[in-house]
């Protein structure tokens, strides 16, 4: 899943370690999230969105399903 984690984190001037500590995960998890290799649980997604003061859909971009109406 695509996301804007890195952009939002850099905007706030946080390191990956700082963000990891704020949401209670390891730095490796933040790295994997930013690279799109790992999709967070709903709880972690909410925690991240709350840290950025944004909605989940503004942080994580759910891909449109091809051939279906919205």
């Amino acid at each position, binding site marked *: 899943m695509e996301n804007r984690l890195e952009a939002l984190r850099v905007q706030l001037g946080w390191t990956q370690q700082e963000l*990891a*500590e704020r949401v*209670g*995960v*390891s730095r*490796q*998890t933040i790295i*994997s999230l930013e690279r799109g*290799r*790992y999709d*967070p*649980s709903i709880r*972690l997604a909410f925690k991240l969105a709350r840290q950025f003061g944004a909605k989940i859909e503004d942080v994580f971009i759910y891909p449109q399903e091809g051939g279906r109406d919205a």
Partner: protein
Amino acid sequence: MRDQASWAMSILGRGLVAMAAGLVVVVAVVALGLLSRHTGPGRLALSVGMLQLGLGIVRLLQYAYIRRHPWAGWRMMMWERDERLQLIRARAGQRAFVTSSALAITLLLWASLASDFRLPALSSDALWFSLVVVVVVPFLVYIGSVTYEQTFK
């Protein structure tokens, strides 16, 4: 901080239980050895007891370290509870279990067919090596799986 305190207490609890269990086994084996000439699997039980004792001591040392270095303790707690790591460990455990089952079933089938002379019987050496494979290979699968997923996923 309350969360970290309860986590630290759980480590202390696990350590004390392991130490108590280990101590009971060691004392029981030593006492039986002194009372009776026949020790049976005494050495094996003693090893298990000492291992439990050792694990308990490690837990107590870990607890003492966490108390003196709260920040390091918080990081240890995060590593233990990290959701991605938990998922990686669960998947690795599943793969190790499947590997272990496949190897054990293969060994059982071989032994069954060997009793009917449809396959050559396993010598005691071959049986020992086969059992080593059944025990060691799943560990390697577990470690390899965790390492691979930690690095590439």
